[in-house]
């Protein structure tokens, strides 16, 4: 499997995710945002960070960068796209994913571990979560408050496009387990074709038990199937 990680000015999780991909034998290439063509890839990753200093709205400027046209084309042709944190924000700005990420409800940057319930395991990113569907990932964001209007939220539920929800360690989805005010505790969503996933938590930071945990490995292992 081949992947490309897109690097924007201000990306800071690009190398972390590259290490994660390589750990799972995914052949990765870094691609600069100003490049006009995407190398042949099965998976494109938009990494976390603060692309363009979060100017205007998080992800908005990156969403108009030169390489993004190619990423949209790749997604439309069925190629896989994974957006983590700022990458998720960029995907909503491009329209590849629905909704938008607002400032956290309490206006604070949140950096901590959270529990997630994997609410859809029938997609290429999440098949391995069948064996463990409550996992612990770190979050680190200021704008992670997923917002969509009621029609869209109903559609996401009906079509089973919500991949991750914030929950407690027992897997219960409630207000107390919601760190940032996200509608319906949403932490990650899929597009209709389920080839594009965006999530605020960082799977690439939990791939090494010695350092932090290994729940994130389940996502990368799912991709290999």
């Amino acid at each position, binding site marked *: 499997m081949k992947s490309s990680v897109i690097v924007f000015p201000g990306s800071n999780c690009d190398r972390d995710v590259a290490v994660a991909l390589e750990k799972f034998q995914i052949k990765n290439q870094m691609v600069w945002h100003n490049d006009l063509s995407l190398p042949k890839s099965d998976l494109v990753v938009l990494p976390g960070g603060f692309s363009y200093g979060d100017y205007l709205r998080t992800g908005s400027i990156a969403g108009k960068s030169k390489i993004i046209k190619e990423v949209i084309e790749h997604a439309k042709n069925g190629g896989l796209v994974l957006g983590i944190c700022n990458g998720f924000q960029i995907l909503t700005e491009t329209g590849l994913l629905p909704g938008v990420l607002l*400032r956290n409800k309490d206006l604070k940057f949140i950096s901590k571990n959270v529990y997630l319930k994997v609410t859809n395991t029938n997609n290429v990113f999440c098949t391995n979560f069948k064996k463990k569907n409550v996992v612990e990932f770190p979050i680190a964001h200021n704008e992670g408050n997923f*917002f969509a209007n009621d029609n869209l939220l109903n559609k996401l539920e009906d079509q089973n496009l919500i991949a991750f929800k914030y929950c407690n360690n027992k897997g219960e989805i409630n207000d107390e387990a919601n760190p940032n005010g996200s509608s319906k505790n949403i932490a990650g969503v899929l597009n209709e074709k389920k080839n594009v996933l965006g999530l605020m938590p960082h799977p690439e930071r939990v791939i090494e038990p010695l350092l932090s945990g290994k729940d994130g490995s389940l996502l990368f292992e799912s991709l290999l199937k």
Partner: protein
Amino acid sequence: MKISAIVTLKNDVLDPQGKVVSQTLKNMGYKNISQVRQGKYFEVHLDEKNPAKCKEVAEQMCKKLLSNTVIEEYKISISE
């Protein structure tokens, strides 16, 4: 000509910054405030003399970049 665009969150979208500003103003003694909504203001200077064309370009800019129409709305005015 000059395009002025004001971008604000739609009414049904939570505006935590606006809430904090509202609370602070109340604490300062402005008790009769019912709501504060915070937004962004853009000035775009355009080499174009036709106001109708300016308006059209401004609409496109607001739709494509200056606002995210999922959560925001915009108001445009054109001046010399």
